[in-house]
């Protein structure tokens, strides 16, 4: 019917057509995303000096903030994992109605503005907030508990915002586990907990690491929640970047901090991704 040359030409035309379809979006990503970000990062070495990087990575104040940010991100990730895993297991075993309701309870907060939720935490956790007021009215406490404007408040707010990012990948991984595997194990006499530990859990690890990577990376760059719930006592690196631009107009230093944040983000994301692949090999 057609010669090889013909089909090669058709293929080339097809590729060209597809490329033209993608081109406008790629141009837009280049102009409104890649170029501005690279331009910002390049400001950090403006004038050929590394002094801004030295300040960002050697000055005690900024090192503390970076370390605190990493610590907060690690804690948020850990707490999210502890809370998310049982939810994901429950969801994967629930019936149709249960799963639908559960997903709704997960996705409604997920898509509600971070601002709305942060405001609600202010209302709940404040000195005269719902929780303190109720506890005092019931006579359980005499003085209001310090729930807000500290690390605890920030952690509560961030975990609530990021939890769905952990539940959904684990849930998806659990759904992919073939139920026949654990049925076979139980048919061979393994108790349910054992078949869970030896079969279901290892197979869900790809979801666990995907969730951990997302939550860690997103919490590292968090801004609104720590700014509002931390009350100035909890400083994360994103707040520092904003302050450098807004208050001090120190673009080169903000750029250096941004470079450090972005580098940390990408390295951690790649590392956790590598762990995932390693984990898959181990279980397959």
């Amino acid at each position, binding site marked *: 019917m057609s010669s090889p040359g013909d089909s090669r030409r058709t293929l080339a035309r097809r*590729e060209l057509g*597809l*490329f033209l*379809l*993608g081109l406008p*979006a790629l141009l*837009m*990503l280049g102009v*409104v*995303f890649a170029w*501005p*970000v690279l331009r*910002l990062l390049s400001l950090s070495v403006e004038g050929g000096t590394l002094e801004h990087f030295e300040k960002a990575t050697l000055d005690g104040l900024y090192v503390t903030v970076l370390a605190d940010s990493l610590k907060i991100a690690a804690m948020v990730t850990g707490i999210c994992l502890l*809370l*998310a895993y*049982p*939810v994901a297991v*429950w*969801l994967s075993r629930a019936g149709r109605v249960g799963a639908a309701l*559960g*997903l709704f*309870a*997960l996705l*409604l*907060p997920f*898509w*509600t*503005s*971070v*601002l*709305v*939720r942060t*405001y*609600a935490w*202010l*209302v*709940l956790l*404040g000195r005269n907030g*719902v929780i303190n*007021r*109720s506890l005092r009215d019931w006579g359980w406490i005499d003085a209001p508990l310090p729930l807000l404007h500290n690390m605890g408040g920030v952690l509560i707010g961030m975990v*609530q915002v990021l*939890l769905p990012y952990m539940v*959904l*990948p684990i849930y998806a991984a659990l759904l992919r586990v073939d*139920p026949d595997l654990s049925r076979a194990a139980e048919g061979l006499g393994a108790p*349910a907990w054992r078949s869970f530990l030896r079969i279901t859990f290892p197979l869900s690890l790809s*979801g666990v690491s*995907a969730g951990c990577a*997302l939550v860690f990376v997103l919490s*590292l*760059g968090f*801004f*609104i929640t720590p700014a509002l719930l931390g009350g100035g006592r909890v400083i994360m690196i*994103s707040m520092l970047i*904003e302050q450098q*631009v807004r208050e001090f107009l120190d673009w080169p230093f903000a750029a250096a901090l*941004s470079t450090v*944040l972005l580098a940390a*983000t990408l390295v951690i994301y790649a590392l956790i991704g590598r762990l995932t692949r390693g984990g898959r090999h181990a279980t397959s």
Partner: protein
Amino acid sequence: MRHPRRFSVGNFLLASSAGLVFLFLMLPLLVVFPISVSSASYLQFPPPGFSWQWYQRYLDDPGWIDATIRSVQAATLCTVLAMGLGVPLSFFLVRSRLAGVRVLDRLAAAPIIVPTIILSIALYGVFSRLQLIGEWYGVAIAHTVLALPFVVILVGAGLRTFDEAQEQAAAGLGAAWPRIIWRVTLPQLRPSLISAAFLAFISSFDELVLAMFLSGASMTLPKKMFDNIMMEIDPTIAAVSVLQILLVGLCLGLTSLFGRGALTTTITR
């Protein structure tokens, strides 16, 4: 498929811990409802009585209404742009066999990973030179960058399950390509397209960090709320919050009715 339903201590613990976590997730959403209909003149809980005063105040304040209109405009334009650019991009990323396409796939997903604060100040620098600060369409263009990954992931997932032989059949019968895409492919992608559009709209409507830097004096709704929270905690925000939660609930409901039942696929690729 179902696991055998047995009553055991393990299952009970699992169900109750899941229940507590769901409560924790929903608590901040539930608490704003009673506050929004409080008759007290300041934040008081439980509310002493019922009143629509905070909704009235929202509707009567041109500041709030202007911010709402601006956010709706920006979210609409963002949706149009993200769909108009993102759907063709998904075709390219899913179907092309070029060597570099995987790198471009990463580029399209990168805005999820790159901290928004970095993109915000980067665009702040560029937009202030172009005098785009304070223009609602500037905010919309910036939001499009954040919405594109959602569109590409959802539409890409739909495209991967679509059988291309149908297009070849239509082509064999003499139909032209634009017509094939429009009449054969896109109708079958409709669930993905609907989900993607809703997500793009909501992601822009709710976004604050980019809007903080780019919206200047002409605030979007989230920026206006942020300023209000910083100044005083006045229950008007609770009323606005309730309206926002209802809007998200409506979008979610419509998506699950007409869309791909998979906001799940959004983040689990």
